[in-house]
């Protein structure tokens, strides 16, 4: 279990992390979201003991993370780095050896992982001859092949196409099933929502959201309606309690000031009987992200 309590690190007036707390149990995934510079990488570095916090503490299974724990860590830094002149096998074997896994075991496991991530090429291919996407996959393999129990992934989905993103999602979920505590950052809310058990959003180092995706969405109330009905754009715009109307395709997307207004919208829309669509939900995480980021820009 990873427990972060009151973590604070200041670099300057607007950088760093302020009073950050969260817990990741075994077999749990936490998504860390926030704009660039919000404090995600700083958080990861403090967890890894690469940076000393000004206040607060990080414990892994009840103790401070020390070099003795390094073998149980899998870390994918935001900026990818591989030795371009090495072959895939040399690279993965070296990184795994630094995590305490013998070359023999790594060599045995590697073909399976290459298949899992659909890496194009042979284990004897040089890193520099691989496409960027394949290099990224090799980096992910190097991060995960030693079966770590604490996995920290900084923007693991960036640069992956949807097919490869799905492969990564599957692997992350597999590691979760194996009992790993996983923390990852992402800009893609869809990934975060699909994979995360909990999520935490940082804005200028401050925690603005913390909880399960469902809890967080519900904090914002069922203030979004998707509607297909005889009601026209003008009518919807004039509706009391509706703050915004947008037409996308043949459906209207309504933003409500209060979720109670949904009842009147439903009644008006169904006044003449059947309608194909009425759906009232909390805002999507993507939207919440924009709302929270927007709050900073005001």
């Amino acid at each position, binding site marked *: 279990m990873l427990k972060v309590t009151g973590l604070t690190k200041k670099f300057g007036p607007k950088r760093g992390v302020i009073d950050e707390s969260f817990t990741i149990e075994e077999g749990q995934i936490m998504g860390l979201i926030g704009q660039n510079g919000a404090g995600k990488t700083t958080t990861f570095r403090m967890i890894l003991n*690469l940076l000393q916090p000004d206040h607060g503490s990080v414990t892994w299974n009840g103790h401070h993370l020390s070099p003795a724990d390094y073998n149980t860590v899998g*870390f994918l830094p935001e900026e990818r*780095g591989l030795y371009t002149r090495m072959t895939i096998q040399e690279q993965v074997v*070296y990184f795994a050896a*630094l995590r305490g896994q*013998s070359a023999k075991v790594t060599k045995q496991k590697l073909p399976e992982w290459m298949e899992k991530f659909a890496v194009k090429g042979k284990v004897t291919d040089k890193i520099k001859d691989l496409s960027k996407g394949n290099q990224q996959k090799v980096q992910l393999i*190097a991060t995960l092949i030693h079966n770590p129990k604490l996995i920290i992934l900084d923007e693991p989905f960036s640069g992956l196409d949807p097919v490869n993103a799905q492969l990564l999602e599957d692997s992350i979920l597999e590691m979760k099933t194996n009992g790993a505590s996983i923390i990852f950052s992402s800009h893609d809310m869809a990934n975060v929502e699909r994979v995360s058990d909990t999520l935490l959003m940082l804005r200028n180092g401050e925690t603005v959201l913390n909880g399960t995706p469902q809890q967080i969405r519900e904090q914002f109330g069922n203030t979004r309606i998707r509607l297909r009905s005889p009601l026209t754009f003008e009518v919807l715009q004039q509706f009391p309690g509706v703050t915004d109307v947008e037409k996308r395709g043949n459906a209207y997307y309504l933003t409500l000031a209060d979720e109670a207004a949904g009842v009147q919208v439903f009644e008006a829309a169904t006044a003449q009987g059947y309608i194909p669509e009425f759906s009232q939900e909390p805002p999507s995480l993507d939207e919440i992200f924009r709302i929270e980021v927007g709050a900073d820009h005001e």
Partner: protein
Amino acid sequence: MSKFNVIVRQVIRKNLKSPAYIFSLLLPVILIAAVALFAFINKQTNQTPKMAIVSDNPALRTALVAAPTHGDYKVDKKIVDHKTAEKKLAHEKLDGYLTVTTQNNEFKAVYRQRTNANSLDTDTLKNNFSTLKIQQTAQQLGLKPEQLKQLFAPATYQTQNVAYRNGVVHKQKSNQQGANIAIAVAVTFLMYMFLIQYASLIAQETATEKGSHIMEILVSSVSPTTQFFGKITGMFCLIILQVVVALIAAGLGINYLHQNVSFIKGFSLDQIQPGMIGLLVSFFIVGIMLYTVMAAMLGALVTRQEQVGQALSPLTTLGLVAYVVSFIAMNSNSLLIRIGSFVPFLSQSLMPVRYAVGNASTLEAWLAVAVELATLIVLAFIAVRVYRNHVLDYSHKRWFSKKEKA
């Protein structure tokens, strides 16, 4: 396998796969092979000249033909007359022929050679001819063989070389000082090349790992201290390998070449003082390590790989200065050079030369090694601190002021 060993092995393996390192490792072998090849080709193309001897004095001719040639020429004994000799010469069956006349007691020899012939070292032939002339003249004068021997017994002449080390006469064989200086100059040159090479090797590697953010993975796997000493130890092993290869190449090379190449003739391994080899090897290892550790530290300070050259230039300049000044040290023992030969970063180039020319005592030489070694140890601990604090620091300022306990 411990992580320390993983890093050491990685450094060694990576470099053994790099063509640049292999080339530098084999450089002494290549140099010696080149000289050996040159000597071999020279020997092959320059064959022993073949000649004929014709004379109006058959007894003299027979004696001359029978005289020892020391491998300098071969005589075709069948050719006895001028006409045949000329014909064979024209058909390139001979390189030349000697015509000896003894009319009126005047001994005269003319060697006629083709311009494109194998050249003749005339010393032996001239000697033989002179000896025969003397013998014949002595016979005519009625001198006894003992008298002849007495007449030609040479006066003795001898040269003695002495060198003073530590204030007392230091016994050395005739070529010893020359050999010492030659080897000191050669080693100083190799050392300069290698210290620049190793310094840039490790600085590049550190800066590349930092610049490409591989460092973040490394320091989250292994403590920076283990990593730093692992790298330095790996480099140390490579240096040792380099020394061993150079020593073997030099040993085999000198043993083989001193029989075949004129300028190494009379230069053999036992002319080099054993103390000199130990000193050179010590300076070689400690000197290069000192530069390597310094370079690793500088490599950790830069943010991008492109800045390495700039960060290293003061260090490489220092190495160059030490190397250049070592030439001055060969002929000068000024105070500045005496002091310089004890200063770390300079001593590895200056002291071996001073020691070789006899300007420094054994004690002084080893003292300089000790000073450099002590500096190396202190520097290593400073360097590991700097390395630890800066490998993840991508800011462009505060190079030395940042005190972050990582």
